[in-house]
């Protein structure tokens, strides 16, 4: 056959067309994409039998129920536990990322002993036996010196058996210095002690409220019990309850509220009193409640027979809407209308404690807001605040004390809580650095840190580090290499909350009395130990009456014994809702408008609920013309747990850009400073400086800048370390003169182009 041009072309065109009509090219393309994807480093997750384990989330104090999906012995997904009273199957982004903490690269895998300089990251592996031996010997020696009160412990909660074991250890050792991380609950506790005469904690019956007046509480930004608050918000939407958010920045809570009142920061107490003024003047308050339970509403006489102005008169005289408008920068009309709306609602409630509630509030504001609730009878009533008795299921026999212990326990607490000056406070961790730095030898010689990361979460990081450097022995129980663990002498790693048994009692803010049981979802991955077991071993190693105070074989035995007949139900269901067998504490039904507990002495008049005292911020106004306020977001964890990679991924590029935190600034203020979106600036406060970027937002009052909490970690891995700025590093705490808690709401600042 002759191959001419014509047949050659016909053949080549024909075969090209022919091949394309066959599946061959498509098949090849398909195969090629499959071949090019069969890389050995692409994981193929192993399949197997699926199962679920029910437990409790341990990443904050809200205590949501979780169910964890497992494939064979691997945990693959955390979900909310349906039917649980706190979260009913719902779950927040942090709770969802728990497995990244469990399997992540920040775990401490075995007990460690520091060998290099403190904080240099040089560690030596050590066996559990040896580490308990070494620490118990040191503690015994320290005790022999006759100053057992030099042992201290920091813990995020005083509830649950592990905290109780730690506290018991301190007690029999002879130290009163059990320090709890402060939060808005510390403020509520002090307020109820002073005004209700009750030691119970406050529960918020918000699902039943119909008007929520929030003085900056970030109800949708992680406040107290994040998932429960968001669920409550949906209930409010359905039943058309009204939410009024009072804060200088448009947080998510403010954006979702029915009304946002942009107030000058630091003036909440004045607004609360202005609202009280209108309610009293228009006679809209709950006369029945005020007459039946209130004290000091009208003129009153103290024990010495001296007459004092009543709350009513003080408020009527000093807090007219016009005065309050001047202080707070809010319209007179708005003050009056909010007061009337609040007073005319059937079940209103007023809340305070800004952001996620991780920081306390000044007592002044707390008492003024609490008084608003009293005016409307929103205390121990449906939809209001409920005074919930403290959990009482941990009933251990009184421990035997030796002479040293009895003497030590009588000494004044290192933080001054419960002492003469701060009689109502239970714990004032915020004062610790100041106290240590003021003395030549640290009043704490040994510090145990459990479920806390004080070096990151406490104000004025430089001072905190200085104070910690003066403590000769720091022992961390952290399962993760956080800032405090990195700066300790020994790390005795706890199991993560997914590897251990642990009870958790009534979460803060809950109106129901609840006990939940966390249980191991997976077997411990590393050579870690439940801290309860470590404390029991330490006590046994110390011998004598200390060992006797811990008669249990191990933590599990202690837990089963403590929970008694509840253990079986807990092991099956994961949680128990305690029946309200007791009527509400009648003592707490009284309401002291005069706050006599702190106010009998006329010197203290400044803290009367009916007074607003503007707090002076550190620093010179001309040198620092702006005010920096912190804010919280659901997408950053600012407590003792670091934000996991998944959650960091959800953070907007207007909050974190590359490794820079962004500060919110009003376009007007930015224009004055010649700044545009994304500019890099140096943020300076009287205490420190940092490099940040600006984010222009109409959602913040002019003259302010706002920085998110939860960034600026130096510890953890590359997914968190070195990202952004830690607000806590930028300010020194302002101590509330009466409660002793930190009452910082802002700090003077300036910004200049980098």
């Amino acid at each position, binding site marked *: 056959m002759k191959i001419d041009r014509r047949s050659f072309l016909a053949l080549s065109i024909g075969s090209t067309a022919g091949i394309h009509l066959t599946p061959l090219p498509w098949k090849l393309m398909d195969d090629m994409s499959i071949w090019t994807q069969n890389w050995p480093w692409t994981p193929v997750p192993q399949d197997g039998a699926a199962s679920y384990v029910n437990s409790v989330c341990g990443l904050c104090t809200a205590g949501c129920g979780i169910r964890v999906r497992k494939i064979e012995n691997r945990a693959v997904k955390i979900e909310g536990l349906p039917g649980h009273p706190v979260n009913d199957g719902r*779950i927040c982004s942090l709770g969802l990322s728990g497995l990244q903490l469990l399997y992540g690269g920040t775990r401490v895998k075995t007990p460690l002993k520091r060998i290099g300089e403190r904080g240099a990251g040089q560690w030596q592996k050590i066996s559990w036996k040896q580490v308990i031996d070494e620490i118990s010997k040191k503690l015994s020696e320290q005790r022999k010196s006759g100053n057992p009160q030099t042992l201290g412990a920091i813990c995020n909660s005083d509830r649950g058996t592990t905290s109780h074991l730690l506290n018991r250890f301190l007690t029999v050792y002879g130290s009163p210095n059990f320090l709890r991380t402060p939060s808005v609950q510390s403020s509520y506790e002090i307020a109820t002690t002073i005004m209700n005469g009750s030691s119970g904690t406050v529960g918020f019956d918000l699902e039943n409220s119909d008007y929520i007046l929030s003085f900056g509480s970030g109800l949708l930004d992680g406040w107290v019990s994040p998932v429960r608050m968001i669920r409550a918000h949906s209930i409010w939407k359905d039943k058309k309850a009204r939410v009024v958010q009072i804060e200088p920045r*448009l947080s998510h809570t403010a954006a979702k509220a029915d009304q946002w009142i942009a107030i000058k920061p630091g003036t909440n107490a004045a607004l609360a009193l202005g609202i009280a003024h209108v309610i009293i003047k228009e006679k809209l308050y709950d006369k029945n409640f005020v007459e039946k339970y209130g004290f000091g509403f009208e003129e009153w006489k103290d024990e010495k027979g001296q007459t004092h102005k009543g709350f009513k008169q003080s408020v009527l005289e000093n807090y007219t809407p016009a005065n309050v408008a001047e202080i707070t920068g809010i319209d007179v009309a708005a003050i009056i209308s909010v007061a009337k709306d609040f007073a005319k609602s059937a079940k209103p409630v007023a809340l305070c404690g800004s952001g996620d509630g991780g920081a306390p509030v000044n007592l002044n504001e707390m008492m003024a807001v609490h008084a608003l609730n009293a005016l409307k009878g929103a205390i121990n009533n449906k939809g209001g605040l409920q005074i919930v008795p403290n959990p009482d299921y941990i009933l251990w026999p009184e421990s035997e004390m030796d002479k040293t212990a009895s003497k030590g326990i009588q000494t004044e607490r290192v933080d001054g809580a419960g002492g003469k000056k701060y009689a109502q406070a239970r714990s004032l961790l915020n004062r610790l650095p100041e106290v240590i730095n003021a003395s030549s030898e640290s009043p704490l010689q040994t510090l145990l840190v459990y479920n806390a990361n004080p070096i990151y979460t406490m104000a004025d990081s430089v001072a905190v580090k200085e104070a910690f450097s003066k403590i000769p022995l720091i022992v961390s129980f952290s399962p993760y290499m956080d800032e405090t663990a990195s700066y300790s002498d020994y790390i005795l790693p706890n199991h993560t909350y997914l590897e251990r048994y642990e009870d958790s009692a009534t979460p803060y803010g809950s109106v129901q009395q609840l006990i939940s049981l966390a249980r191991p979802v997976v077997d411990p991955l590393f050579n870690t130990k439940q801290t309860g077991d470590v404390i029991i071993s330490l006590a046994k190693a110390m011998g004598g009456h200390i060992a006797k105070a811990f008669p249990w074989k191990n933590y599990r035995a202690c837990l089963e014994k403590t929970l008694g007949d509840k253990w079986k139900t807990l092991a099956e269901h994961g949680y128990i809702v305690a029946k309200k067998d007791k009527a509400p504490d009648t003592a707490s039904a009284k309401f002291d408008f005069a706050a006599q507990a702190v106010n009998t002495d006329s010197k203290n008049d400044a803290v009367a609920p009916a007074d607003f005292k503007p707090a002076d911020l550190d620093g010179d106004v001309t040198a620092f013309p702006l005010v920096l306020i912190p804010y919280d977001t659901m997408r950053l964890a600012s407590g003792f747990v670091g934000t996991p990679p*998944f959650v960091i991924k959800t953070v907007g590029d207007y909050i974190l850009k590359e490794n820079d935190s962004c500060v919110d600034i009003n376009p007007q203020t930015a224009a004055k400073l010649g700044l545009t979106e994304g500019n890099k600036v140096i943020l300076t406060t009287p205490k420190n400086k940092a490099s940040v970027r600006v984010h222009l937002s109409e*959602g913040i009052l002019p003259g302010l800048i706002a920085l998110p909490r939860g960034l600026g970690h130096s510890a953890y891995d590359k997914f968190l370390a070195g990202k952004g700025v830690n607000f806590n590093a930028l300010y020194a705490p302002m101590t509330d003169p009466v409660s002793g808690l930190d009452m910082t709401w802002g700090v003077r600042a300036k910004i200049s182009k980098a």
Partner: protein
Amino acid sequence: MKNNHNNGKAKKFGMVIDLDKCTGCGSCMVACMSENNVPFKADETDKRLSITWMLVYKLNNGKSHPDYDECYLPRPCMQCEGDHGHSPCVSVCPAVATDYSHETGIVSQIYTRCFGCRYCMAACPYHARYFNWWDPAWPADMEKYLSPNVSPRMRGIVEKCGFCFHRYQLAMDKAYYEGRDELEEGEYQTSCTQACPAGAIVFGDLNNPKHAVHKIALPDSKHGGRPKNPNAFRLLERLGTNPKVYYLSSRKWVRDSGDNYRPDEK
């Protein structure tokens, strides 16, 4: 394997997201990542390169203080039906790696077929598709939490939300095992729906008048499922992509930001 089941009636799975209830907390985003083996990198602040099948946008009304207002809008894949199954991405895929299922109404993504031309990303008006520029890496022991129900992807391919299709498969397997062809409404729910603390996401079969999604959105089947509920809207309705994700808002400016308008319109 041959079985005697049919797949029941044709479904149109869809979602209604109540923007009045959504608080922008970001749970849906993480619920999605942890369910679907979504990778992460050290720096995720360049959002064009950050793989988020579910993404919560922050909208604002463009006004100044005190009239300034914000709204949060979660955006999964819209599972566009387009014009009889011609969703924008499906029409352009040269590898049939993405397809429209008339059985479920879900737009699939078959990773091993994708060769990374990214036509679909260009075609998608919702930016719901993401490209793997790097090989994913799970540090430390994190490979242990990977779910066997979703295959991990690799460098060079496109991925997106598929309404947790594996959950549909698992639910159907269970139903078949129990001798049923149809699922109850709650049996197949996406991970984001399940996690949402606000309960703002409702998921179900838009074809089934008994399902909440149908009752809320009231899809008009004559007009490609356009919602009859006056507070409901779909994103870029006028493109005719006929998405199966509906949004609810009582605020007009929010509903208006779902589409583009010329200044002389409205």
